Each structure stands twice: as C-alpha cells, then as structure tokens.
C-alpha cells in the first residue's frame, strides 16, 4: 500500500516534465480545502477540555479500589520497590516506565519494604501508598485522550471525527482498566500516541524546514519514540510506523522535481537521522545508565548476570565471600541451573532398570538441593604436578573424594539410569580407584571464559567438569527425577555435548573453618566497575534471550487473531466475599465497530486502487491523497502494532492490542468523516439538481450534516456499553449471577461468578 501514493505522484511528475517544474506540496493532504471552517477554534477547545475532564474522571473514579495487589502489579510494583531499595533485579522490559514508578514511589515516601508478592495482598495493612502510584498511569491514560484528539485535529479532521476518535479511547473499558493499575501499558500507549501526534505536527511543518517549529516537532517525535521503546520493545512497532512515513517523505524530497540539490537532501536526511535515530537511542541508553546507577546493591537479579557484572554490585556474595580453593579442601559443588549439590550416599544403582538396561550397581551419585553432610567432597590433585595445599587452577586435573563414604567419584562407559546416551556417575573405594580405574576418576577443570592458570574460587568459579578419559561433562537436570530407589533426587550423568550451557558448576563453599580464615586474609575487595556499554550489552542480550524464552502457557493468554473482535478477556482480580472482579475487556461495541471500520477502509482503498487503475476518477486529488497518505498512515500504524504479534512465540495477552485499538480508533474517525462527506456530496448532487448545487452544499455545510448524526448515534451506543461493563472494569459493585451472565455476551468470556 505504501507504494501506491507514488502512483499519483507519478502523474504529477509527468505534468512536471511538460510544464515548468513545481515543487510538490507535501502538506497538501494535511490541509483542509472546505470553503470556510465549519467549526471554530473555540469549539475544538471546548471539546478537548470536556473530553480531558471526562478522561480524568473515568480514570480516577474509585482508583483506590481494590486496595489489593492486582494482576501484574505483582511485577511492576515489585520492581518499583527494588528501585527504591536499590537492589539489582532483572526483567525483560527496558527500564523507563519502571523507573518512573520507582521515582513516584520514592517521591511519595514509599520505603520499598512491601514486595507485592501475591495477587490479593492487602495494601492498606502493609501501608503502601498505592493510590499515588496508580495516579501516574491514570494520569498518562487520561492524557492519552486529548492526544488522540490532537492527532485528528492536526491531521485536519473535522470536529465530529476528532470527538469520535478521542471518545473511542475515552470510553474504552480496556484502556481504563489497564491504566488505573501499576502497569506499564499506560506509559506505553501514551508515548506511542504522543509520537504519532508529534510526527503529524512535524509533517505540518514540511513547508518550512529547519525552522524552530520544525526542529521542535522532529525532536519531540524522537523523544516520544525513545519513550515507547524504552518502556516495552513493542515500541519498535511505533518506530517502524513512523520510519516508513519518514522514508516515504524522504523519497519525495529526493525527487528532482522537488528542487532539492543532493547536499540539501543530505541535510534533510542527516536531521532526521539525528532526531529519529541517534538521539532516541542515546536517551534509551541513558535510562539504562540510570538503571545501573540506581541499582547499586546486590539483589534477586544477580543470577542472570556474569560474575564480572555481579562484582560491580555491593554486598554481592561473589565479592563478599568468594575464597580460593586449594587441593585438600573439602568443598560442596553446586549446579548453576538447578542449584543442586553434588551428592552421594550409600545406596546403590539397581542392577536392572525398568526398561531392562543394566547398571554398574555402583554407589549412587545424585544431585540434592538441600544442605547435607553427604554433599562434602575432598578435592585431590589428578596429576603429579600439583600437591595438597596448591591452588587449583583452570585446566587442572583433579579427583573428588566423597568424605562420608571414603570413595572416589568416577564416570565410566555405562549408560545412566534415565539417559541411555549419557554416562553413569558413581564412586568406588579408594583402593579400587588407585588400582585399575585411575583414568576414570580424573576430571578436568574448564572454567567458563577462564584464562589459563586462573585460580578456582568459590561462588565465582563457574566451570565445566569434564571427564578426562571420555570427554563428557558432569550434568544434571531437575525435570525427570530418579525413581524411588534414588529417593527422587536428581540424576547426575556425563553429557557428551560439553558446550551445553547447563553443564556449569561452581564450588559453593569450602567446608570447615578454612573458609572464614581465608576470607579474613583476603585483601579487602572493592566494588569493581565495568564500562557502561559493556554492562548494557550484557543486560540487553540477556533480556532478549529471556524474552524469547517466555513461551509457557498462561490460562488467560490469547492469540492475536482473537483481539480485534475481543473474543477473550483477562481476569485481573476477584474477591469472593463481595463477588467483585476486574476482568480486562474492551468496550465490545467499540472494538467491533473499530475493527469493522478497518475492513471498510480496505474496501474503500481497494475500490480506489481499482478505479484509478482503470483510469476512472471518483475522488478528487486531495481526497484520494488523504485516503492513502493520512488514513493510510493510521492503518499502517494499526497493522504495525498488530501483525508482528503473529510471529511472536511468547505469551500474549489482550492488553497487547491496546496500541492497535488506539490506531483503529483514528481510522474510525477518518472513515466516518469520509463516508459522511461522500453522502453529503452525493445528496448535494441529487437534491441540488436543477438548483445551484454549490450553494446547497454550502448551506448543508453550515447545518447539521450526515457526519454529526452518525457520530452522535455511535457515541450513544458506545457510552451505554461502557456503562454496562463498568462493574467489571472498576471491580465494583459485585455482580449477582444474572448480572454476570448479562455481561457474558460471548461464551468465551470467562468471567467469574457466573454460577
């Protein structure tokens, strides 16, 4: 679709080659051509004031209810608490909106002690200033309404279209429910709408490039964009939308008939690159810098980061209690992914497994997640070059002795209980180990990103433990425990795929007084610093990795195809005693009408493309361009905020469609105005036949037209449905069975208390 406007433009160019070149008016589609303004500036002003007031009322109405943790407040409230306590945490979303919550919490004196652990935890009892924290998203949510109005107004739509689009967001139950809680979406939707607003304003300044207004709106567009994708990566869709618009615009500037020389064009290009790419990215990085600066203490997110990164956090166990390990020490070895300790006990492997395979009947070696005396292993040198008391270095060969049974760890070419392709681990008495089986007992220390000769330390010394003889790495997992004979503990086996990230172990502690002694003699460790960009890159890659891993199912997850017609909601909160519930659901009539409008647009666009192709001129040049370039831009925005979700593997929820819904509201306003004006024109042509058609048209333009009638009707239905669904949006009052069933318009809406 993006190409199609070029078609019309080509026609202009053909003319240009014949007559004198005339620069194309880029702002043309954004200007109005009606004889006189039908609505005064004042009318717009009054409308936007009323809508904004209503927006604040609908967003703030009973905002203190429920005084409990609702849905994902569990996460985002908790993150705010972490910021306030300055303890490091990890999350897949960028920091901007979470920082805002932290900032607000800090301003109003929240101490961050309450950790928002469970849905339904009481705020009042725990003394959390939650109302003020919720006021932030509610304010942003309310301000989204005038922004939507502004987009339509700046794109030169009539007052009815502006009111319609803004009301579609104003009276939408999903927008309201989502923005009254401590969630990121209010910030996301607001900045997304603001970016579009700023871009439309920027386009209005196309005729006067490099003026103050032009620069200001360019920068504000960039600022808006950076805020969207510093909130959630969904912001990249907004970036794409505006990016396409900018490229399209640049392409026309490149046209030689536009009259720009290449250096002038270069200036345009550079200005946009600076304002829309470099500056937003720097702001994005800035938020990470703030993030790292605020979170200076060790916390629940440590484990996601590398040891070098963790060393930059104060009170980190790696920096605080890491000591070197020496030969002869008794240590515990912990598996990084499952936190299980290497363990052994006098039990033996059964001779035959259920599937008929045979074991060595050796002593069991398992993984056990609790502290136990059977987790103690003494480490011996595995080659003559080292003796007891030497430091253990990366690349060393060593042996492990199980202290309680005086046996030596080994692996051999026997299949493990659960994994026929992996090697069994067992232990044998020291005598046997020294006799024929020495080679089976020798393991090599391969430290993760280790330098040769680097000493092995507790906590920080991530390493693979590879059997020298067989080239298998010690491995365990906790999804498939051993049967009853193994006390349901974890199986330890030798994994042939050495490079797998789940093969990592580290020494958890040195048993006995040695640890404390060594710690005392350790030089006092400073909190280290790592260059910011390196830290950022590490966090960024970890975020992407974990985001992709969020594939598990959720009972209220939904697929993108179900969103536009609202076939599923999300249960946010319920209270059995009062039969109250918050169920995230859009305004059903609003969503269905807005989504249908997109189909209507597709019909109009197709008809326009087909007639144009056949050389029939139905619409005026300006109307045609408005259909493609302005309404088309809104449709592009909608598509960009919806289609990419189809390709995402992660959990998706209805609220991911809120930006898409906002875009479809813009399309609705535009299409209603278009249809209204077409009917209007048609009527003028028919009724005005014989009379002065133009005069008739002007008369009509002054009075109440088709558009106003349509808008009033639509608003009536919209407000009624909003009111009808308000109880599940605001979570009050409770509904009886009849009330719930009366709102269960679709069988797929799994509202509570329907029985």
């Amino acid at each position, binding site marked *: 679709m993006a*190409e*199609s406007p*070029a*078609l019309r433009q*080509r026609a202009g*160019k*053909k003319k240009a*080659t014949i007559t004198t070149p005339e620069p194309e008016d880029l702002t043309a589609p954004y200007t109005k051509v009606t004889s006189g303004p039908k609505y005064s500036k004042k009318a717009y002003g009054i409308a936007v004031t009323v809508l904004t007031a209503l927006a604040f009322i609908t967003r703030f109405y009973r905002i203190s209810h429920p005084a409990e943790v609702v849905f994902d407040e569990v996460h985002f409230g908790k993150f705010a608490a972490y910021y306030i306590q300055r303890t490091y945490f990890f999350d897949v979303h960028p920091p901007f909106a979470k920082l805002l919550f932290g900032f607000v919490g800090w301003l109003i004196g929240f101490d961050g002690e309450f950790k928002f652990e469970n849905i339904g935890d009481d705020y009042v009892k725990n003394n959390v200033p939650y109302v003020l924290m919720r006021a932030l998203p509610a304010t942003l949510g309310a301000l989204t309404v005038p922004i939507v109005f502004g987009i339509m107004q700046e794109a030169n739509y009539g007052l009815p279209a502006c009111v319609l689009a803004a009301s579609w967001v104003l009276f939408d139950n999903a927008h309201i429910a989502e923005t009254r809680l401590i969630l990121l979406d209010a910030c996301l939707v607001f900045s997304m709408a603001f970016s579009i607003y700023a871009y439309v304003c920027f386009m209005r300044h196309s005729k006067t490039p490099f003026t103050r207004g032009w620069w200001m709106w360019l920068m504000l567009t960039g600022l808006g964009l950076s805020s969207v994708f510093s909130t959630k990566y969904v912001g990249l869709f907004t970036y794409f939308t505006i990016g396409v618009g900018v490229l399209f615009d640049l*392409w026309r500037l*490149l*046209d*030689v*008939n536009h009259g720009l020389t290449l250096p002038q064009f270069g200036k345009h290009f550079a200005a946009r690159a600076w304002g829309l790419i470099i500056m937003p990215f720097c702001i994005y990085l800035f938020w990470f810098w703030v993030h790292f600066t605020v979170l200076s203490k060790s916390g629940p997110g440590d484990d996601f980061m590398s040891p070098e990164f963790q060393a930059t956090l104060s009170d980190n166990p790696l920096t605080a209690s890491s000591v070197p390990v020496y030969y002869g020490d008794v240590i515990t070895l912990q598996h990084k992914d499952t936190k299980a300790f290497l363990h052994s006990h006098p039990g033996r492997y059964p001779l035959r497994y259920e599937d008929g395979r045979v074991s060595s009947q050796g002593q069991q070696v398992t993984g056990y997640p609790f502290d136990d005396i059977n987790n103690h292993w003494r480490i011996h040198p595995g080659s003559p070059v080292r003796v007891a008391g030497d430091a253990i270095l990366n690349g060393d060969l060593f042996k492990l002795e199980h202290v309680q049974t005086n046996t030596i760890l080994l692996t051999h070419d026997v299949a493990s209980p659960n994994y026929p392709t992996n090697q069994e681990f067992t232990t044998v008495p020291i005598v046997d180990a020294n006799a024929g089986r020495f080679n089976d007992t020798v393991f090599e220390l391969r430290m993760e990103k280790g330098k040769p000769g680097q000493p092995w330390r507790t906590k920080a010394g991530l390493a693979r433990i590879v059997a020298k003889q067989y080239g298998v790495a010690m491995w365990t*997992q906790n*999804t*498939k425990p051993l049967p009853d004979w193994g006390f349901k503990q974890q199986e330890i086996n030798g994994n*042939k*795929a050495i490079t*797998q990230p789940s093969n990592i172990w580290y020494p958890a502690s040195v048993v006995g007084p040695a640890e404390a002694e060594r710690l005392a003699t350790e030089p006092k460790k400073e909190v280290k610093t790592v260059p910011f960009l390196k830290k950022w890159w590490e966090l960024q890659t970890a975020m992407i990795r974990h985001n992709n891993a969020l594939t598990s*199912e*959720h*009972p209220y*997850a939904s697929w993108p195809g179900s969103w536009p017609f609202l076939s599923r909601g999300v249960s946010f909160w319920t209270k059995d005693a009062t039969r109250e519930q918050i169920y995230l659901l859009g305004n059903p009539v609003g969503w269905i009408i807005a989504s249908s409008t997109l189909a209507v647009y597709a019909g109009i666009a197709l008809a326009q493309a*087909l007639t144009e*192709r*056949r*050389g029939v001129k139905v619409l005026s040049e300006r109307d045609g361009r408005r259909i493609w370039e302005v309404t088309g831009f809104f449709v592009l925005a909608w598509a960009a905020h919806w289609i990419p979700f189809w*390709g995402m593997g992660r959990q998706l929820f209805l609220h991911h469609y809120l930006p898409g819904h906002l875009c479809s509201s813009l399309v609705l306003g535009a299409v209603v105005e278009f249809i209204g004006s077409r009917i209007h024109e048609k009527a003028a042509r028919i009724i005005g036949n014989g009379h002065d058609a133009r005069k008739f048209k002007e008369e009509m333009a002054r009075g109440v037209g088709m558009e106003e009638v349509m808008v009033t009707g639509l608003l009536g239905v919209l407000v009624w449905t909003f009111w009808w669904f308000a109880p599940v949006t605001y979570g009050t009052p409770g509904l009886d069975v009849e009330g719930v069933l009366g709102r269960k318009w679709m*069988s797929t809406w*799994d509202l509570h208390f329907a029985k």
Partner: protein
Amino acid sequence: MANVEQHELKKRKVGSGTGEAVVTKLDAAPAMDHDEKKYAKVAMNAIAQESSLPDVYNPILPLLFTALALFTRLYRIGRSNIVTWDEAHFGKFGSHYLKREFYFDVHPPLGKMLVGLSGYLANYNGSFEFKSGEKYPEELDYVFMRVFNAMFGVLTVPLAYYTAAGLGFSPAAVWLVTLMVLCENSYATISRFILLDSMLLFFTFTTMFCLVQFHNQQPKPFGRKWWKWLILTGTSIGCVCSVKWVGLFATALVGIYTIDDLWQKFGDLKMPKVAYAKHWAARGAFLIVWPFLIYALNFYLHFTILENSGPGDAQMSSLFQANLKGTDLTSSPVEIMYGSRATIKNMGYGGGLLHSHVQTYPEGSQQQQITCYHHKDANNEWFFYPNRYEPEFSSEGELRNVRDGATIRLIHAQTGRNLHSHQVAAPVTKSAWEVSCYGNLTIGDDKDHWQVEIIDDLKHRDHSKLRTLTSAFRLRHPTLGCYLRAANVNLPQWGFKQVEVTCTKENDPKDVHTHWNVENHWNDKLPIGEAADYKSPFWRDFVHLNVAMMTSNNALVPDPDKQDDLASQAWQWPLAHVGLRMCSWDKNVVKYFLLGNPIVYWGSTASLGAFGLLVLWYLVRWQRSYQDLTRADFDHFHYAGFYPVLGWALHYIPFFIMGRVLYVHHYFPALWFAILTFGFVFDWLTRRLPGGAKVLVYGAAYVAVVGVFVYFSPVTFGMEGEAEKYKYLRWLRTWRIHGQE
C-alpha cells in the same frame, strides 16, 4: 511487491515519453517475424542482440551439458553399497509400495511412489528393511534405483540451460548458470541417493522453466503454445507440491507472477472485458484447480496401491483401516459389553488412539499421562467397566451392553488405572481441564466416571447400543460437565510429542474432535461380527491424511535436550557455513559429505546483495530523473532479475519462522533461484565490457566453478579410507570433513 509497482510506474512514464521507440519495436515484432523462438529472443533478449556469440537455441551445447551431467551425477554411483542417510526412510517407503502395505509419512506420495517405481523396475520385491548403514543384499539392484533417482538430477542441467536462455541471458551467462548447476557439489551429491530431493529439485526447476516459457508466450495470449505452457506450469506446480510441501513456495512464486500479470492487464484499458475474464478463468482453472487435482490424484494412487494393512494404519480413521486387506479390525465382536477390551479412536481429522503410559505429567496433577497416539501398541487398550455405584463387574455375570447414556469407567489395560479428569488446567490448552489416569479398581472417586453419548451410527438405525467401528460417541464427564477431546495439539518433549487429550468445557455436539469410536474390540464371550461394509469416502481420507501429515510435521521440532549434530540453522546455508555427514565416518565406509560448491554458494549469495544495491542505485537515479533504462531493460530487470530474487526469498525466508528441525538440503531449491540471480547480475554487469575483457571474465568464472568442483569432488564422489586424507578440503573450521567432533 515494491518492484512490481515500480515497474508499473516506469511503464507509464516511458510509454508517454522517451520509450516510444522501444514500444513500437516490440509491437511490431510479431509482424516482422513469425518464428516463435526468434520472437522470444527479440522480446527477452534485447541485451544479447548484438552479441556475436553462437545461438543459445542450438541443441548441441545443451546436449553436451547433459552428457557432462551424466558424469557428475552418475560417476561412481554404486561405490557405496550401504544404506546411506535418509535412504533408510525413502527406500523403506518405496518397499511399502512394492509390498502394497499402508504406511505413514509426513511427505506427500509422488516422490516416494517414484522410488517405488524404480524398485519395481529393478525387480525388487520390497523385502529389504533399509536399515541405516546396512549393506545392500545381492538381489537388490540398488544401483539401478539410484540411477533412476539421479536422472532427475541430470535433467536439471538442460532445464537450467533453457530457463536461463528463456530469461534472455546472454549465451555466456547461460553457460555460466548451466555450469553452476552442473558443477554444484551439493546438487550432485544429493541426487546420487534414493531420496526425494532430486525429484523436488527437478520439479522446482520445471516450475521455473515452464513459468519462463509461459511468460515468453505473453504477446500471443490464448495461442496454442500459450495454453501448452500454462497447462505445463500448472502440472509442474501439482507435481512439486506432491513431492514435498516445500513446493508451495514455488506455487507462491507462480501465484505472485500471475497477480502481477493480471494487475497489469487490468490497467490495459484497451483489452476487452471478456478477454480479461478469460485470462482469469484460464489461470484459475490451470494454476489452481488443475494442480490441486494432480495433488489429489497422487493421493488417490497412494490409497489404491497401498491396499494392505501396514505400519501406518493407526494414523487413519478406523473406517479406512477396516477397508484395508489383512486388518484385524473386521474380526471384532460388534456390540460392546461391560468387561470388553477395546481401543478408542478420535474421529477428528488426524485423530489418534486414546493412550496412556506410565510416564506422569511433570506439572499439573503429576498423575499418569493420557495422550492420543498414532501407533498400535498395548497401551492403547481400555476396559469398559461399570461405574463405582453399580455392582462390581464380574466376568461370570451376565453380559450387559454399554448403552447410550450409560455412566462407565474406562480402565487402562496395562496399568489398571482409570481415565480421570479434574479441575486442573490441561498442560498446553490451559483453558480446558487435564485428563489423567488415576487410581485403580478400588481406589478412585466419581471423577473416574464418563457418560457415553452416542451421536451417530453408520450402519444401524438404533443408536442405543455402543458398537465397534460404526458408533460415534462422546464421553461426558458427569462431575465437571466437560467432554473428552483431542485436537492435534502436540505435547512437549516430556509427552513424546504425542497429542494432548483434554476435557473441554464447551458442549459442541458438532466438534468432531470430541467424537470417538471403538476401533479394535476383544471379548472372548462374544461372536466375531461381520466386516463393516461401509466404505470411507476418498475425500475424507484425503483430508484426514493431510491433517495427520501436518500434525506430525509440527511435532518434528528440535529437542532442546538433544544436540543434533546434523541439524543446522537457516542463516548458515547461504554462506555454506556447514556441511552434513551423510553416513558413518568409519575408515572402511565410502564417506559422502553434503557440501555445496563454495564458489557457487558464496557467489550466488553475494549476487543477491549486489542485486539489492543495483535496484537501489537505479531507483535513486530514476528519482533524480536520469534515464538509465529502456523499457526493454526494465522488463528484463523485472522478469529475469526480480522474479529469481523473489523465488529465492520465498524458498528461504519461511525457514526462519519454521519451528521444525532444519538441515542444509532445505536450502537447495532456494539455491537454484540464487544461481539465476547470479546469472542475471553477472550478465548485467558485464554486458558493457569489451569483447576481450568479457572473454576473460567469463573464462575466469567458468574455470573457478569447474575447478572448485573438481577440487571438492571427493565429497561428492565418495571419500575412501581415512578421513584425515581429505583434511585439505576443510576450508572452514565448521566443515567437519575429518576428526571426531
């Protein structure tokens, strides 16, 4: 589509101004010369017109290339006498056709039927098991079967020649493209074995070839040759899709070309509306309906040939199985009694048998798993038992029918546990309840109860009794009010990728995924009933098998717990970053390493980037009003440049979003389009060179392509002895030509 649109613009612009001369020439061409070949040359070959090189349509060169192809594809073809790589699968499938036993596979049947045909021609009786790495027996003429396969590989070479010629490349470029196909190590390697890939490649080549020929007939719509090539294009689409579903990408290419073409014709205001409608109708008939019929015909043949019961039975509906020869389904008692042992089949498309095994759910209730399984084993067997409120079943007692509305228990024969559901979310479809196997004869509760609702009976008017095969019934959970359902959703690895069984809260009597029928039925006290004489309709079987193929295909995802040394990732392919060991790397084995000719791979990949830059260059120049391209140039760019790139993208990019296990040979169809792009770009960039320089450049290219092929020929013709001998071929560390890891 960007370029398509641009082409439109360009045409308009040129048509109104400077391009007049070219257009006239084009329009006048048929009048001047009625020889079609020459006409095509004038239209498409505008660039090569002044070339002094020999006529590309002279048959001597293509014959020579074909002869050389016989060498690259057949030389030493029988050297390795063991079952190599996926011959283990496709050879076996071929055997099933010879034995006429029903089997199941994720690929459509055409390729495998051709393998079967080759076996038939080789007088092979289908008795060999094709175990991987096993030596072929004396009586099996595997060399003939391989040669039969390799012929498809040989024929790609002349097809490459005529496709490039049809696209209007200069003769030198036509030879280059042909040489690149001829001396492509991976193509030569893959077509030497009993696999589907040589056929897939062949039909991909024919599709592009027919499309090009059809395009060259565009100036003479509805002429004899126009019809011929249209029908052949449709036939080719039908065949390529009947070998592997990857053929749908080739279909998409033809589809986009057709839309582009019809859109242009739509803008032709001079064309009569009837003619326009005729264009639509012709394409609808021969590019949609006709290929679909060919696809269906293949399945018809498949069902006709495989008339005996075999290993794939359980994938199909019970009714279909009942019509296979040698099935045990027809020797069951008819009416189900309490105490009967039976297998229960889901009636939805692609449905399997209700199954349980000792493994438990790792989450949810952690009780014993219930799945739908597509293979026959004892774990599919269930006893019909009375519910817990009724007197206990005794084998001595009177026989009682299981009737419509009865509340029963189903006891898993192998573990003695009851089919059970409870208010725990199902593992994948979280909105439904989990179904598990719980308790035993004495331990349990009323959540083990299921109410039989008979929906339909194929043979009997009376729906009150449950009967083998013919009764369709639903199982309702009386306590929860939900229905037992299986809808082709694969469980994760812990459930062995079998199909999830849930209890759905929706009561939709039309939902066939909640319909079940009894398949096998055993009860010693009952007489054996008559065979069901109700035939399962072809279209039903056709849809059923296709759905089952889709479900199995979705289950072919990489196992995160296992490291597959052979699998690769899509980004690695265009860079020839990895190869694939096709057999064991023992020193006594003739070793084949599936690796492309690096020059061809790297060259063709680079040409894709170069094409992008060329487009950008001309677009920017055009926007600045430089008149670089004539109308003929533009058309050449559009059809001979853009469409190959589109073909490459269509055959390559979808692999990035596919979840399944990927191997290097998945890139082979895309490579053909990349080679064509290379031919186009090379031709375009060299066409202004003076004669001498041209000879030099092309000469160097020929030598490089052939030379590297010869250098790497051991990986194609088989490496004997120690792999260390071929260490010198390991240009990249990732090519595991030698060594352990």
